């Protein structure tokens, strides 16, 4: 009997030791340090906005002087919060102090990943479409697929950028000091800055995000509002802002964002899904050209993803320029060249080495992820953190990147549906893929176009990393051939087209006043 006791005690001891080992995983930016800009960019009010005509388009009233009872009451609010500060509030301050643009970009990426799920079919083999008017009913709105996501990142980032340019204009104009520079007895939980604190840049970023995300993620308002409340509270608790800084900032952010929302409602994205007539026409047109048309490889066949996304209004150029960026045709579907390309893909998937899976899965960014545009945002964000940018420069760089990504999506989608070219697996069903095949035509590769654009923009922003971004884009592009999803020409031309789109963002960067 003693043996049993010993054996059981041994088992229990092992189990307890094992359970005691914590498995909790730390995210790469969980412990990001508080933002301490090397340069506050005091003259960013002169930078060129995207949509605003002038930084003073939205009127921000002059703040109360710092010697008024009203202001002093606001300082006392900070002190009262700090007296009863909880660990949860300290964690909140730490989280948000890493940067407003960073955190809202992460939140947006989270929502994209949550919503990047293709709807399940109806019983009759057709597919339901999400409805913005009924976002919580299945299929939930939106289906945040790659073009939808690229557009979402662009609107949120560009709205934040314009709103911050305006905020910087008023900061310089009114020059109201940060609370800790008014009252030196104030405890401050974040790095101090000489930047005027009215209106609050954090609240500007939050207000712009909340307002644009109402349109983009209407079913997630509880989550978004909760983040917004935490963000604003964190800034007051930390002593970074008094309440009137926050209120003015949030109102400015929302007002600027409304201009972007108005633009978004009219940018033709709402009609991008097309309808049966459009889908049939695409097929007929390809046949009329003597080509094998693309068809969906899903069962049941799913209508193509956003076939009219190529018609969406770009940020960096007009619609004629968008069309001019469309590359020439791929090899004819009946040509020897196309057959050779399909054979190359087949040979790759037969050689499915572990390294191929690594590359394919690292870049797959498929169902349930933040998409290729989100992946490039993540790469950018993690490289921006050690650069110690001001919030306005963070926003500017993210806006440049995301406008390029959205516009790359537009040109790519225009090309895909202009040529309506079949996937390798359609031409050779023996081609089994190392990740899911996206439900839209092959030529040109979305990953390659997005990556070519992102690498061009990021190489301009951080020239020291230019080689890194180029090789990452090349690997992202190659991953689609290794996966069996794209021909080589889809990828090489996609990279080029992406780079051409990215160069429009570079041109903008050179003339926006920030350099």
């Amino acid at each position, binding site marked *: *009997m003693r*043996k*049993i006791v*010993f*054996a*059981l005690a*041994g*088992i229990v001891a*092992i*189990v307890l030791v*094992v*359970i005691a080992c914590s*498995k*909790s*995983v*730390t*995210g*790469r*930016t*969980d412990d990001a340090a508080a933002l301490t800009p090397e340069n506050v960019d005091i003259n960013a009010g002169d930078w060129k906005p995207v949509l605003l005509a002038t930084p003073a388009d939205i009127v921000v009233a002059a703040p109360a002087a710092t010697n008024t009872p009203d202001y002093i009451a606001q300082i006392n609010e900070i002190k009262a919060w700090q007296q009863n500060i909880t660990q949860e509030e300290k964690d909140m301050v730490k989280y948000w102090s890493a940067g407003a643009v960073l955190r809202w970009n*992460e939140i947006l*990426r*989270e929502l994209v*990943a*949550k919503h990047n*799920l*293709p*709807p*399940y079919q109806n019983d009759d083999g057709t597919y339901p479409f999400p409805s913005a008017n009924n976002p919580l009913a*299945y*299929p939930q709105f939106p289906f945040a697929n790659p073009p939808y996501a690229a557009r979402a990142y662009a609107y949120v980032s560009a709205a934040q950028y314009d709103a911050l340019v305006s905020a910087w204009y008023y900061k310089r104009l009114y020059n109201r000091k940060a609370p800790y520079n008014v009252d030196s007895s104030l405890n401050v939980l974040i790095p101090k800055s000489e930047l005027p604190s009215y209106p609050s840049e954090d609240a500007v970023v939050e207000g712009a995000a909340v307002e644009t995300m109402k349109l983009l993620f209407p079913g997630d308002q509880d989550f978004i509002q909760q983040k917004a409340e935490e963000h604003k509270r964190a800034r007051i608790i930390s002593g970074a802002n008094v309440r009137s800084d926050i209120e003015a900032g949030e109102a400015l952010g929302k007002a600027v964002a409304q201009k972007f929302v108005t633009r978004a409602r009219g940018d033709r994205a709402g009609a991008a899904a097309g309808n049966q007539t459009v889908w049939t026409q695409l097929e007929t047109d390809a046949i009329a050209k003597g080509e094998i048309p693309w068809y969906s*490889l*899903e*069962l*049941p066949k799913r209508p193509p993803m956003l076939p009219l996304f190529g018609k969406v209004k770009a940020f960096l150029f007009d619609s004629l320029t968008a069309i001019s960026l469309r590359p020439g045709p791929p090899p004819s579907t009946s040509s020897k060249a196309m057959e050779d390309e399909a054979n190359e893909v087949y040979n790759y*998937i037969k050689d*499915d080495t*572990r390294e191929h*899976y*690594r590359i394919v*899965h*690292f870049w*797959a*960014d498929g*169902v*349930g*992820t*933040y998409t290729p545009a989100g*992946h490039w945002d*993540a790469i950018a964000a993690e490289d921006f953190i050690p650069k110690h940018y001001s919030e306005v420069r963070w926003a500017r760089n993210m806006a440049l990147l995301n406008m390029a990504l959205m516009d790359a999506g537009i040109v790519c989608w225009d090309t895909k549906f202009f040529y309506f070219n079949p996937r390798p*697996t359609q031409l050779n069903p023996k*081609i*089994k*893929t*190392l990740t*899911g*095949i996206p439900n839209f035509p092959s030529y040109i590769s979305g990953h390659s176009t997005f990556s070519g654009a992102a690498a061009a923009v990021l190489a301009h922003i951080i020239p020291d990393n230019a080689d890194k971004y180029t090789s990452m884009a090349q690997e992202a592009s190659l991953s689609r051939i290794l996966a*069996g999803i794209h021909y080589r020409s889809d990828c090489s031309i996609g990279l080029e087209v992406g780079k051409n789109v990215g160069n429009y963002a570079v041109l903008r960067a050179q003339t926006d006043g920030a350099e």
Partner: protein
Amino acid sequence: MFVPILSMAQTDIDAIMMEKNALCIGPSYTYSSWKNYWEGKLKRENLNLGTVSTQMVGLMGTYGVTKRLNVLFSAPYVITKASAGTLHGYKGIQDLSLFVKYSPYKAKIGDGIFTVFAIGGFSTPLTNYVADFLPLSIGLHTTNLLARGMADYQQGNYFVTGSATYVYRSNVKIDRTSYYTTEAHLSNEIEMPDMATFNLRFGYRSYRLIAEAVFNNMTTLGGFDITRNNMPFPSNRMNATTGGINIKYTPAFAPRLSIVGGGNYVLKGRNVGQALTVDGAIFYVLNLGRKQKTDTNNNQTK
């Protein structure tokens, strides 16, 4: 199931011990397939997968350190395939499993014999196979530690065995740098919930023949449900209750040989495929000790 587990012959979870210095070793083959699976609690089919099948070829062995202390090992090669859709199958060597099985206590109770076992297990991937390619991954790439308590009662040729197991699973690293469960994670590391299993088996056991019915319940202690029309993920809450049978036969003309066959079916599950699994194996007993003693001591020999 989404995760192929080499459960063939069940040597780590049955009440059979090898004699001292005896090595029972042999190849096994398992075929498992499912068409329907549970997306969370919702049972569905997937036309883009068709039937997902798993084949496993394994080498298994049990060695008697003493009559009361056995060590066991197994290592399978696994091939997965989907009959429809475009996804590529996967193949490779999966995990090495090692078990120590100890029988500290045996007593006559009533007309039968009651035996207690304590089992410790360890498994770890032998190759860098892809975990994050479900349902076509060949495994989850966790390193596991397992603790099992087991009791057996045999009266005449009839027996019943029950066991409870706790499985600690290490976190796993995947090829992507971010993933979404019920929230976003900016990491390539997945927090893997532990598992618990309960196993009940009963039937006929003699020197020549063992025939048993087996029920197994596997519960993941945490994890999340597959969201609607999403792909499965390693840290899903994978639960399954299976029912099946096993038969082991030792022919009179070759007492060192045993032939094993069995099958089981997932009766109820969550985030797993409704798999029908059949398996077979041939084992041979080698006596590595100095004494050339055959297995006549009792009925509990492989």
